[in-house]
């Protein structure tokens, strides 16, 4: 009988790094903090729990399918179950440092870390991802997608969006 290599959870996490946010194509959802839990068992069945950034995220079902496909397509995996859960409510503090840098490189200002108390102040004088200035104005707490706020940089005279703190 062939020995089946038991796959590790690290291996699954690593492979999940290939699933990107559909609107920010170089941002893996693992860096966004959307994958809550990965479990494997002796028979190489995989159980994944994920949560949406925003309850109304229109990409949620697509992402669930991509997560499933990314792991189910691996030769070693057996049954794969992906569950959308609200056990852990996503908040923007769950974006990793690497994720924040990717956002900046993409031209999106990352969200301020917060202690649960979101207020307007947190959205003012946000650092411009184009030129680094803090002489910026909040234009709207709403933007082109649910997660974005719109700002304007008075130094480089460009508008930019911010992944808003939630």
């Amino acid at each position: 009988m062939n020995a089946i290599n038991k796959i590790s959870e690290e291996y699954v996490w690593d492979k999940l790094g290939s699933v990107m946010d559909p609107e920010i194509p170089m941002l893996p959802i693992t860096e966004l903090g959307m994958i809550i839990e990965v479990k494997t068992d002796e028979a190489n069945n995989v159980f994944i729990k994920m949560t949406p950034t925003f309850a109304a995220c229109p990409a949620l079902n697509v992402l669930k399918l991509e997560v499933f496909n990314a792991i189910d397509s691996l030769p070693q995996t057996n049954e794969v179950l992906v569950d959308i859960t609200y056990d852990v409510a996503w908040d923007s503090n769950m974006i990793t440092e690497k994720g924040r840098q990717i956002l900046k490189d993409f031209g999106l200002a990352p969200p301020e870390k917060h202690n649960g108390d979101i207020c307007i102040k947190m959205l003012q004088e946000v650092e411009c991802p184009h030129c680094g200035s803090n002489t910026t104005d909040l234009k709207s707490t709403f933007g082109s997608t649910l997660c974005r706020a719109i700002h304007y940089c008075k130094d480089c005279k460009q508008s930019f969006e911010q992944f808003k703190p939630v």
Partner: protein
Amino acid sequence: MDNLKTLIYKLADSQMIIGHRNSEWTGIAPILEEDIAFASMAQDKIGHALALYTLLHENMGEEDPDTIAFSRKASEWKNVILAELYTKDYGFALIRHFLFDQLEAIRFESLKTSTMEPLAQLAKKFSSEIKYHTMHGDIWFKNLANGSQESKARVQTALNECFEYANGLFEKVEDEQTLINQGLYIGEEALKNQWLNKITSLVEEAGLTVASMGDKGNGSLTGTHTEDLQPMLSEMTEVYNVEPNAQW
């Protein structure tokens, strides 16, 4: 229908209906930022409705969310009547949103400690998103109430109009006391007191007056709705009803 289920339908339906009303501004709001704001808030509300319909489907034996959202007729909906009213103008939409979201913030805050775990989890999620809605409603209310004579007058008119339907926001499900005793819900009286205090302080601070709460919005939990709802539903469900069993 058991009373917890009815309560969750009330919450879900209210989000869905006001979500659709908010979405009606897409492309025609008075300024671009408000177009974006209302579209974004509408999307959030519809997402909250979806999450609650999913809870009803997965935990309480109800139909799937699409069937719930798109196949019922007006008398089957349990939304608060204020949400369904035809949007006569932007001022009305804004003040309705201000009043409604102040209430939803309080309601979902209180549900964070519900003994129904899945509901408490959703309440935690929604609460952080609703913060942006109340921020928007509060800022605009304040600006317009402290603006010109015209804006003041229009805000007062819209407040008075909304208040005619205010008691309907707090319509109780049957045997609500059982839900309260089981720690599932803090009850409509408690919510009404918190909301009225908050609104009164905001309104009076702006130099305006709080009208008395009216009964025009009563009856939605027992099938009574205004004539505004069915036309809205017909429009909202138009695509679905072309072929109800279509696989998307």
